[in-house]
């Protein structure tokens, strides 16, 4: 009994503080808007945001799906290309040496600005430019990590394979590629939220107007701030779904990482 009581207390100690912080924050927000009589075109009430979320859930859902699909297609495509590219070129150090500076550049510069260039290359109503932008960012993250994984060999395992007189191809298939799995799935987990952010921001650079990015900036810059926030909530849910999904994938595919992950 006491153990159960202690357990309950422990989990309450973890769950309660953030819930209280969240509730207090939202309550203060609501109270401030009510008391100060802040105009809804400046900051909407939390209740108003909820209202517009449930008034027409389809509106928000549709935009979420457009952006979510763009992010997902880009994430999958970029991951596959990054993984296959790394495995195919791992014999040639020069390729990794050439990809690395580009990866550094893509990570450091506001690469989304080239989405305008990409959009120019395709038809006006096409989502390909945005998806390509997501793939490019994901590709570099995955490529760099998988290359690290291919080189991150356990010396005991490599010696073992040598003692079996295994061919380079067998070593690649049985040791090196399986060894990249933790790196691949960590990379995907890192890339998933970035994919959503890029899919969203790339909508600021023209193209079709049906995604979350254009909806959010349209509503927040306009007067319907409550709807804008409803879209923001939708975008947060998409981001969390991507994070949760990629974390779950990592948990399932590389279970031995659960206990080893440093942080």
């Amino acid at each position, binding site marked *: 009994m006491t153990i159960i009581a202690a357990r309950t207390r422990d989990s309450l100690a973890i769950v309660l503080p953030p819930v209280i912080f969240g509730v207090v924050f939202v309550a203060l927000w609501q109270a401030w808007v009510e008391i100060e009589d802040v105009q809804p075109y400046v900051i909407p009430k939390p209740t108003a945001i909820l209202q517009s979320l449930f008034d027409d859930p389809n509106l928000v859902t549709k935009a979420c799906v457009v952006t979510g699909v763009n992010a997902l297609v880009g994430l999958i495509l970029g991951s596959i290309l990054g993984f296959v590219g790394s495995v195919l070129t791992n014999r040639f150090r020069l390729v990794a040496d050439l990809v690395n500076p580009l990866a550094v550049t893509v990570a450091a510069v506001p690469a989304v600005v080239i989405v305008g260039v990409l959009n120019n290359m395709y038809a006006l109503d096409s989502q390909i430019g945005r998806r390509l932008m997501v793939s490019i960012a994901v590709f570099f993250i995955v490529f760099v990590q998988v290359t690290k994984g291919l080189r991150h060999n356990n010396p005991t395992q490599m010696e*073992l394979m*040598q*003692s*079996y007189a295994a061919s380079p191809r067998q070593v690649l298939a049985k040791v090196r590629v399986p060894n990249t799995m933790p790196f691949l799935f960590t990379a995907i987990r890192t890339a998933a939220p970035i994919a959503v952010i890029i899919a969203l921001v790339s909508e600021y650079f023209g193209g079709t107007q049906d995604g979350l990015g254009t909806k959010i900036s349209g509503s927040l810059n306009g007067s319907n701030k409550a709807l804008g926030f409803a879209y923001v909530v939708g975008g947060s849910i998409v981001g969390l779904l991507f994070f949760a999904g990629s974390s779950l994938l990592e948990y399932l595919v590389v279970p031995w990482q659960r206990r080893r992950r440093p942080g």
Partner: protein
Amino acid sequence: MDTAVPNPAVVVSGVRKVFNRGATNQVDALIDIDFTVQRGEFVSLIGPSGCGKSTLLRLIADLIEPTDGTLVVNGKPAHQARLDQDYGIASQHSGLFDWRTVERNIELPLELKGWDKSRRRARSAEMLALVKLSEFATHMPWQLSGGMQQRVAIARALAAHAELLLMDEPFGALDEMTREHMQAELLRICSETGTTVVFVTHSIPEAVYLADRVVVMSPRPGRITAMVDVGLGRDRSELTREATEFFDRVTEVREALRGTHVGDPIMGVDDR
């Protein structure tokens, strides 16, 4: 192996190994190494850090090549013996593959040899029974304790019907109790299978308890300084560890080691 004349399991003659030859950081790892391991014999290699005992084991395994001299394993050049998977190897890090179940870890060398699946499964079951881990066949390695992982590594080393087992401080990372248990298990496995073992260690009691013969080595340059015949017979038990003869042999090995030049023990050669 029904050869009329029983040939030795390992013959090392005139072996010398120099690392970074000609460079400023040249290291004479081994010189003048001559010794023979008979079939079914258990030989321990002991010596301070940097005496080249691990290097010698890797030379026998053909993981590195000697600068001079020849190594004959199972009656053929060490290189051919490796290609034929005549030996099994186990080291301090079990080197198990996280992503394979215990049985699939044991089957790895058999896969590389091209055995079909049912034959592999039968053999891994046999090996698991030998190391008494049958009920853990479908566990993942990281679900096992350190001692159990080491037993899986031994099963893997013996899976391909190797008659020679090369071991590099396999129990080095285990606690003392587990270690003694593993030593007893290793002796049991060897007597059941008739396996020849070359065993690198830096623990004197371990070397004596396990071996028929202890090869004592000294560093810089690494060479063999003494051979101690243990002569405790094959039937060893926990009582052996408390026997007077056991302590006599331990003392003998310790004195042989003391005679070696123990310079500065930090300068080990890591040839991985």
